[in-house]
């Protein structure tokens, strides 16, 4: 498939740059705006992550919590998220889309039903924050069966042995958490240290696409650009918050931010 996650990484590599992956919460700050934001940044990103808002998130920092809160306050439901993915995918500039959320939302909907629905509307990948290895074996299998990329996570606390086990069963894309943190805090380790960890992962699995996330901003993105991919989430959510507080249009502001981020990766 031309627009598959794997091809996107190949293309970015050909252009000698990391894939840029955005994270926004679906429905932030409302349904219409969140789709407009995604459409407006699509020319500058390679993959879009869309967060499924949950009201008891145990691994999100303040910025993403605020985004989820806005989305929930404005009534976002899974049903809407699926409709919006479908709508987004009709846009000819659309990029692969990964839904990211907490297991409760999937569990409540029903695993099998959820994955079927994802496939039906065109979701390319899934990240489930609190469904880690080995508890995710069955879910990962279901994803594979339905050609959905199940993105495993690796953290700085993950032992080398565990890393090997995870990479062995992982799909082609792997998410490396940059530091011991919830999403969105300031980087508390050096970018050099992050790249050292990245190299360890790549050494074990040279052919997997390893993306780095957590704490990546306009300031730090340039120093990490040798990675296969970089995820920017909280910085975007923060920009939405800032725009709303200043009564500015979040769509144009986020679009500008993402353009700048892209520039710094080239």
């Amino acid at each position, binding site marked *: 498939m031309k627009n598959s996650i794997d091809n996107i990484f190949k293309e970015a590599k050909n252009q000698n740059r990391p894939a840029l992956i955005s994270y926004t919460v679906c429905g932030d700050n409302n349904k219409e705006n969140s789709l407009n934001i995604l459409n407006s940044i699509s020319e500058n990103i390679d993959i879009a992550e869309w967060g499924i808002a*949950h*009201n*008891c*998130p*145990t*691994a*999100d*920092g303040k910025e993403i*919590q605020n985004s989820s*809160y806005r989305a*929930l306050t404005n009534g976002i*439901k*899974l049903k809407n998220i699926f409709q919006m993915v479908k709508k987004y995918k009709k846009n000819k500039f659309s990029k692969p889309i990964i839904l990211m959320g*907490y*297991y*409760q*939302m999937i*569990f*409540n*909907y029903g695993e099998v039903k959820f994955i079927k629905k994802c496939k039906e509307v065109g979701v390319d990948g899934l990240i489930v*924050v*609190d*469904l*880690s*290895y*080995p*508890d995710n074996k069955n879910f990962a299998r279901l994803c594979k069966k339905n050609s959905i990329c199940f993105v495993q*996570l*690796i*953290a*700085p*606390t*993950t*032992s080398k042995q*565990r890393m090997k086990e995870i990479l062995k069963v992982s799909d082609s894309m792997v998410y490396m*958490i940059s530091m*011991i*943190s*919830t999403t969105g*805090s300031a980087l508390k380790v050096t970018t050099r240290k992050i790249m050292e960890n990245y190299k360890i992962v790549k050494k074990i699995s040279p052919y997997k696409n390893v993306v780095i996330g957590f704490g990546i901003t306009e300031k730090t993105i340039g120093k990490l650009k040798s990675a296969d991919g970089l995820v920017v989430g909280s910085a975007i959510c923060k920009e939405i918050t800032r725009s709303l507080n200043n009564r500015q249009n979040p769509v144009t502001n986020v679009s500008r931010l993402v353009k700048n981020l892209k520039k710094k990766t080239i």
Partner: protein
Amino acid sequence: MKLKKGVNIIDQHDKFGFYCNGKFGGNFVAETARKPIEDLSKLFEKLRKSKKFLKKRDFYFKHYLGGETPFFKLNNLTKYLGGAQIWCKDVSAINGDAHKAYHATVNALICKESGKKFIAGDTGAGMFGKNLALAAKEMKLSAKIFMGTKDISRQAPNVKFMREAGAEVVPVDSGSKTLVDAVSECMRHYVSNCDTTHLAVGSAIGANIFLKICAWSTSQISRELKRQLIREFGEIPKLKLINVIGGGSSALGFWNEFIDYDKKHVELIGVEAKYAAPLATNAKVAILHGAAQYCLVDKEGQIAETHSLSAGLDYPGSSPLHGLLKDTKRARYTLASDKEALNAFKLVSKLENLRPSLEPAHAWSECIRIAPKLNKTDVIVVNNCGKGYKDKKIYIENIGYYPK
């Protein structure tokens, strides 16, 4: 599904930390917290087998927490209700004023053993927070206590204790501003600091290891009660053990030693708050704070808001272990309204020299409900698991007084 006899209920999980054929429990945590949790599990399994550690625990239980808590018959209440004999296991007499003292002390001891200098915990009613703050002070650890802003205001006396003991009280202003949000924030703090901080989850909830540590610690209550029953009756009489259920930590401690008994011999009765009663109302199973459990959720799967006058019970989830006890029909779960709990407090404090906090007042309410229907040979034991001082203001606001 059947409970295994002769195996502590906390150990009846599979290798993935699930109870009841995968229905309850598990380890639904972010990858970052996986390794620290695994390390903690290994440490705990080692410590619970270590004679030296058990000696230390017993030393602290005896000399720091004051030793065995009293067990006595409530003659006035028994006479007034005119049915079963009513006995009280007065856990609130412990230094620390609630069963959370056991759990907080053990967590501080484990933290010490792990070499970590920071300890973080959540609290609703403030009993766990207070005890964790005191234990941290005793063991020279730096404590952070996460508490909803609604609870900070309604349980102010305990907040004062925490601060005076030198703990940092972190106000949590998100969501319903109660225990559920405090636990979420505390878990987020752990995800960000798991290399330096020990997480002490305040109830028998959370990923597998946290509920195990909790129920293991509070089981001191039932060890004592068993001895005390034999001292009084020469045997284990036909019993009904009534306990309030919030997260479920006190009940698991109160029941632990009695789970293997036939339910006709020892009946286990859990009492939840009316609008926070996932077990009594047959709620759905949901994933909350790292584990699958009976939990109040809305149609979309979002965690529902709860309402209780009692901060310690104002929680949408329940312990996976209570899910197991419910599904195997070993325990029976019921509920009591704010008003019923307040009326129970009125009656118990009028007839007896007891001042239960709002949480055990729910258990007393069930005792008052069923005692008249039973015979003299039936023995009801209520776990009076918390002192009422912290709710003085709420009692005065609702019933007009707080007895001396």
